[in-house]
């Protein structure tokens, strides 16, 4: 039972990160928008959810105690609105310039969360965030099975929706912009507007992921949103295969699996007296596997499917 219970827990985290990676895949994989501030939108979704649903406390102006569904919708809406403003200001920047701008914005968001104590609880964070239907289930395992169904459902829904849109004319226009923006503009596509649309939609998906994470853990603090999350999500997308939604999900499973399995492996094979050094070995191991993947599978484990007109035989 123990292993099943752990696997369920592990898969909940994978599906939540999976949604986050799908959001990035829409931005980078499909459209070529270099968002290096993934964690910022993840944080906005998480905080929006926590502030809307957590039970009231006298020292906080938020903590509205609203129902779970309102929290989820609010998280989507707030991250979309923030993405519109961030996008309007930055979307015309290209490549690495956009990366620097979005990275800065993510750090800013984290610092706002740390300093706006009246709303976010500052460094103490917000506690007692409700888990949906938590009264009904008696054991941690049965609850986690339910929550896995929920996150997997959201993950599949997002996957299905993104598959649909990426095969639509809109999705093809995004790819055209990614490949050759000048040509796309020459064909009459409004590149800036399309890039902004992809950025906002992707960021809203990231916000959803943040809300599901916070609702699962029941606690939020600025320490949940360090820049390393952005790095992990990028790794997931690149290892799995940028431009392919299946690749994004597979990459999430593999990279997060590697992250936790390497910890287990170290605690099993390294003798007790060297356990203290085990953490460093784990970091090296993770890095090594990632470098090898990139060397031998430069397009990721499952790369983008070639898009060829069905009229060509």
């Amino acid at each position, binding site marked *: *039972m*123990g*292993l*099943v*219970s*752990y*696997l369920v*827990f*592990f*898969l909940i*985290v994978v599906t939540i990160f999976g949604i986050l990676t799908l959001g990035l895949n829409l931005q980078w994989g499909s459209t070529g928008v270099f968002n290096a501030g993934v964690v910022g939108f993840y944080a906005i979704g998480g905080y929006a959810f926590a502030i809307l649903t957590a039970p009231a406390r006298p020292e906080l102006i938020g903590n509205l105690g609203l129902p779970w569904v309102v929290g989820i919708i609010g998280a989507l809406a707030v991250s979309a609105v923030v993405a519109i403003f961030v996008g309007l200001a930055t979307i015309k920047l290209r490549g690495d310039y956009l990366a620097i701008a979005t990275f800065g914005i993510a750090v800013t968001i984290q*610092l706002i969360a*740390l*300093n706006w*104590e009246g709303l976010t609880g*500052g*460094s*103490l*964070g917000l*506690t*007692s965030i409700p888990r949906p239907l938590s009264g009904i289930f008696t054991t*941690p395992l049965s*609850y986690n099975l339910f929550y896995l169904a929920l996150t997997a459902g959201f993950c*599949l829904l997002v996957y299905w929706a993104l598959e649909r849109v990426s095969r639509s004319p809109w999705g093809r226009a995004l790819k055209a912009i990614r490949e050759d923006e000048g040509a796309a503009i020459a064909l009459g596509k409004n590149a800036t507007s399309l890039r902004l649309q992809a950025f906002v939609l992707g960021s809203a998906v990231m916000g959803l992921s943040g809300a599901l*994470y916070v609702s*699962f*853990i*029941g*606690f939020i*603090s*600025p*320490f*949940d949103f*360090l820049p*390393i*999350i952005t790095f992990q999500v990028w790794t997931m997308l690149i290892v799995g295969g940028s431009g392919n939604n*299946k690749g994004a999900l*597979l990459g999430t*499973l593999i990279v997060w699996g590697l*992250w*936790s399995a390497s*910890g*287990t492996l*170290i*605690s099993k094979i390294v003798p*007790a*007296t060297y*356990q*203290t*050094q*085990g*953490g*460093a070995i*784990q*970091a090296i191991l993770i890095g090594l596997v990632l470098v090898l993947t990139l060397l031998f599978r430069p397009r990721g484990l499952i790369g983008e499917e070639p898009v060829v007109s069905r009229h060509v035989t």
Partner: protein
Amino acid sequence: MKWLVGLAAGATLVSAWSLSSQAQAQTAPSCPVKIGGILPLTGSMGPVGKRISDSAQLAIKHINEGGGIKGCPVEFVLRDDQGQPTVGVDAAKYLVEVERVPALTGTVSSGVTLPILTSVSVPSKIPQISCCSTAATFTTLAQEGKTGGFFFRTLPTVKTQAYASAQIAAERGFKRVAMIYINTDFGTGMVKDFTRAFSKLGGQVLKTVPYNENQASYRAEVNTALAEKPDAVFFVAFPQDGATMTREWISLGGTQNLILNNSLRSPEYVKAVGARFLQSAYGMDNASVSSPYVEAFKKAFQAAYNASPDGPGIYNQYDATMILGLAMNVASELNGTAIRDAIRKLQDPNGTVVGTGPEEFKKAMALIKERKPIRYSGATGPVEFDANGDINGAALIWTVKGDQLATERTLTIEDMAQVFKKIDG
């Protein structure tokens, strides 16, 4: 999506296997007995976490040399949280569900300890002892009954330091104090408790100014605090940032009546600021009570690692691990709830005192076998948890004499109890 289906099928197979293997494991404690540990071994807290984990390993060695747990040798299963909440929570879940550890010790950052507590320890009813997490949130959660009594920590809360500082500020006759503090749970906790205590003792905190770490200058923060013209200023900071702001404070004409928190009790800080500016400054720190057991721990650590144990969390982690070792022997069976209740039995006022090291552990084992009460006096002195799993400790007042750090006096646990009584009523 075939891989998802494959994964589900795999999980089902594994569950069938683990069900059949579990059926045999229900009888008497199976050797070795496991204790789970989660500490930051890499990441920004890595340098601190490594020494702390050495201390935990030393305690495990002493437990094993002293007879283990219920006749079994102890295995310490240590996982790295990398300073990242998601990683820490995953590791904790693995330890509890797959390794089936009945108790956990960890971790350092409150931002990691808290999600582990709320999403793993409390739902699975596993006691968790932290060496180093200072956030006031744990106390609040315990008061609201949300920890189920499963959380303990072996370092005095920020309150001890805050109350001691307030007491000395009042004794020195300060009436108006400004604070510049690091914006973490530690800093905000200090501000809250100091303000409360100082106003009860007749003083007034005029202004509290938060700062964010690693900046080149703190002129803006210093000016805000300076505008209030306080009798004294309280810096809650780490050495590097603290030195920068102290220099700016003094060069802008601020008072040299400085109150300093424990992290600034470092020669680097004194050197960076200049000792001659610190002659009327004082600070406080958690004092380890002098006892033969404290000395025994110091010697053992020195011998094992050829390094001094004087660093953050090292004494506290030893106690956290030893307490688990003792409590698991006292507990009638090795499950979380029994161990939680047994932890409370290690502070019997009529009990025989047992200390640190393998010999003392052996002595404790003999007493437990005869069902005699015991009282643990560890590397940090006597350990007594209150209803919320917090402990109160002794405090020490330090100053700068010439260009050296000096200890002015110690406020013993009894002294502190009086201060607490005066402030909290």
